[in-house]
């Protein structure tokens, strides 16, 4: 193998042709409930963890909708379960229950 001194950079593209747009299985997450999300970001803004670990339900849910689920479980393990997000959520999504379900599920 020839050493070139550099490597091909990764493709950051979301390819919606390859990924299924929604992968959180029904049962693990109440699909009707998360469909209410309007991605306003109130949950992440109030989250104590956003400041330290960057946890964002909005980002993770949107990524999941685009078929990117690799970080879901890690994010679920970052939640402090304090429920502030639900208190401020305009669509009243039980976010920590979703994290909890993801933690206990096999996704």
């Amino acid at each position, binding site marked *: 193998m020839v050493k*070139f001194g550099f490597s*091909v*950079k990764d493709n950051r593209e979301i390819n919606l042709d390859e990924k299924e747009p929604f992968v959180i299985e029904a049962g693990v997450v109440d699909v009707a409930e998360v469909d209410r999300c309007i991605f306003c970001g109130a949950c992440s803004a109030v989250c104590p963890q956003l400041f330290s670990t960057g946890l964002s339900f909005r980002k993770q849910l949107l990524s999941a909708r685009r078929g990117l689920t690799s970080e879901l479980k890690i994010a679920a393990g970052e939640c402090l379960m304090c429920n502030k997000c639900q208190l401020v959520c305009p669509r009243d999504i039980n976010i920590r229950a979703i994290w909890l379900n993801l933690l206990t599920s096999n996704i």
Partner: protein
Amino acid sequence: MNKESKVWKNYQKEIPEDHYFYVRSCIRQTFFPGAEASLLRLLRNDLNRDVFEDARHTCCTGIGYHADIIPLETIMTVMARQFSLMNEGGYSNMLVSCVTSFGLYCEVLDMWEHSPELEAKIREQLFQSTGREFDKPKHVVHGSDLVYRLRDEIKRKNVYQLINKETNQPLRVVEHVGCHYAKIFPHKSVGGAEFPEVLSGMIEAWGGEVIDYPERRHCCGFGFRHYLLQENRGYSIAQTRTKLRSMEPYQPDFILTNCPGCTMFLDRWQYTLAEMEGVTYDQKGRGIPVLSYEELAALLMGFDPWEIGLHMHQVQVEQLLDKIGIRYDPDMKYRAKNGDYMGKPAAPDVLIV
């Protein structure tokens, strides 16, 4: 692409038939010198055009410009000198070989148009440093513009057609137009930036079939800043990979470009990608040949492939020559003009040569 489409017709430029002052391309000179030589031979000898070259003309400083290492005023003064040389030869049309130069000439002229005081300043600088004065060219024309203009004339003199000799089907050609050709000033191009006509016009005129592919407008991967720094070179090759991946499913017979840099990167990175990832973007593992417009024109006019310098390409072109039915002497591939054997280069690991 819909053949009925007339969008490109909104973008037309005036291309004079004759009397050009020719400026060369550094990259073409270095990597594909035969291509430039054949363009001049084609225009002068076969088409009897008047193309004048002044040995004193210099690099356009395009690479320096895009690498941010030369001040803008210096660049403008260098260009002004080229114009002055052109006037000295008695010409008013400029024929530019390189797409980067073409973009830069257009840009400088555009800047002068918008700020005449800048032009005045450059005139002053040029006069002070060289004692020269200049008139702006009437037409700045890229080599491919002219070949596009003369495509029917070339067709009449063609020895070969872009038709597969065995199947009698048109060859499937993907084209790549250099970014600086139309994306900076669409109105100074043939066909605009979205659906440029300059290369597809040639292909269709010479019997081939143009294949539209999703990343047709994507950069070839040169992107000066990406290529010039080794740390960034991974981005450069990633762009080329995107482009090649996109054209792969159409199984094109070759890639046609109008920019020396694009020819170079689409060609050389195929080798690098083959070494890095073990992939080639054709089915036989030989890579997709990349030709520039003048190489193609010269080939079809019956020039000898080795005279054009096709052995300078990384992806070997014999497969394409066989398809078109061009006769060539394999023995002559590695011989110099005087017949001396130059030696055969080492074969790469993955790419079949």
